[in-house]
């Protein structure tokens, strides 16, 4: 299974989950990715990881009850509010942190004040305040599938 198929399978897990998520479906191709990487580089961030680029080509950002996965644009929230994009969330995360801490790219958010960051070739779910690591994944497909399965399992347990 290549990364394209793996991400498609993970997104299917999310589509069939207990709670509904909103998928941003605008086209996101290599040209757009290239420009986005330029914007990131100008602000001192690394390029969008390859697998995340594949994810964006299938869903240009997701918001919902399980997690938020960001894109370069903001994402809509209910009532006309806005979830800011990768650059704004990364800037906020790095601004709040200890100034000696490494500058990292934030690609997502989870409840309990957690952020999904990309660092050293892996995705980490970390505490936004302390950067303590809660979970680590090799690629974004693993993050999506595992997070949905864990949350749905918790909901089933709680419902008993």
């Amino acid at each position, binding site marked *: 299974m290549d990364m394209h198929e793996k991400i498609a399978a993970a997104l299917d897990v999310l589509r069939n989950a207990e709670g*509904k998520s909103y998928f941003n479906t605008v086209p996101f191709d290599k*040209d757009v990715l290239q420009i986005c990487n330029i*914007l990131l580089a100008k602000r001192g961030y690394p390029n969008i990881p390859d697998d995340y680029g594949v994810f964006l080509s299938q869903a240009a950002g997701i918001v919902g009850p399980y997690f938020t996965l960001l894109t370069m*644009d903001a994402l809509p*929230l209910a009532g*006309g509010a806005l979830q800011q994009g990768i650059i704004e969330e990364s800037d906020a995360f790095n*601004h709040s942190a200890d100034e000696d801490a490494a500058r990292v790219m934030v690609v997502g958010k989870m409840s309990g*004040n957690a952020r999904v960051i990309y660092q050293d070739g892996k995705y980490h779910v970390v505490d936004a*305040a302390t950067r303590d690591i809660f979970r680590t994944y090799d690629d974004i497909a693993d993050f999506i599938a595992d997070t949905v399965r864990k949350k749905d399992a918790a*909901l089933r347990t709680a419902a008993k």
Partner: protein
Amino acid sequence: MAKTLQNAFNSKAYRHAVALSVLALNAAITPQQDAAALPYVLRENTVFEEKAQARPEQIFPYYPAAENKISILSPLSLSEIWANHGAPGSILEGLARQSAEVQEKLVARTEELFSNRDFLTVLHQAGSGKAKNIDKLLGSIAAIPPEMDIITLAYTRITPEQNKDVWQEFQARSEPAFYRHLAAQHADELKAAGFCDYALSCLSRGLSPTTADGMPYNVDVDHIVERAGGGRMSTAKSVDPVAGGEPSYPINHIGNLCLIMKQWHHSKNDLNGAQNIGATPVGETRMLCMAVPSLEHRAALLNAELVQPYLPPTARDSTYFVQGTSLLLTQKMEDVAAEASFTPQMGKKLFNAAFAHAFDHTVNVWTRVTEHIERLNATGSLRHQEAEDLQKTRDDFLSPLTAACQKTHAPQEALEKLTRIGDRMQAVIASLHEQKSAQSGSKPPQGQKAKDAPNGHA
């Protein structure tokens, strides 16, 4: 600058400061039997030297005859009030570096802040750090919304492993239990705040609230006492008095959780970050100031207007809402436009993928602010002096955004939306100029015609 001072002087917050100053001055000149009971240190004579030079005419160069304004000069500045409370010198220097807007907000918070016995400890901790961090702390305190209280409490850092365990418990048990509790006990409050029936059904299933198409509401679940700094609350389990069931960490109990607007949660996190809580060594305890929901809103701190809490009743303050969102978008578009590899053919595609949602939001905020200003103008609440501020907001934030959209070859309909907003703002500005002309019996200023063209394009 003089106008800014005058605006600050006439604001409610500044009048509050005047009252505080008078109280502080009275306290300072009243002989005390028990000096140890003083909540402040006695002032030094030198503190008042600069203030002695101030004259009312320096504060009111444009409106010396305004009869409905407070026309007394506060005997104490913000720094002086904080000095009297015992704030260290580095913090006082930091106060002096803050903008009038930040100072105004700090004035409104001063009484509350110093009612916390340990606030001075927090200031002394921060005062020994870098100036940049002091500025960050003061700015973060000022940014806490009035709907939240600021308290001081001990922060005892737990180990990363323990923090992880507490977070996993929150994800698996406490968060779903809290949502079900909200659905059962606070449904009316949530409906009043604008949650739809589907969102309430999500909550009753233990899921965070979304619309029927999966779009989340602009809320987070906040730990009132911070999870990573909960000390025993994050290490010794007990039965949640509300949720019952198996023992859980008290930090995750329903009584320590609050459904809170995202932007308020960010403000709270910024205040924590400004105190560098992440650098607290494991096992150590520090005194911190933290923003918490007020007692009556411990379960859900929401606002019925989830997009923006409100637009202030003055043009100057309401236009503030459009500035940040416009600047962010303009800067990103300018960066793209400056890139050699960017081609006009990519314009629409890039706009849809990278800017469309932020653009729609920005237009929405501009539209609301414009409607608000039009209403103020229609009711005669705008003074002709505010034409200059409105013109500046339009020129500094709307026109650059329009230009950036043109450079990045944004779709024509996007440009037209901005043009329409610019035209409506210009109509208000022109109306204010007409009022001024009618009052003075003179013609509108020369050169106004050029500025009246949509978005500043003559």
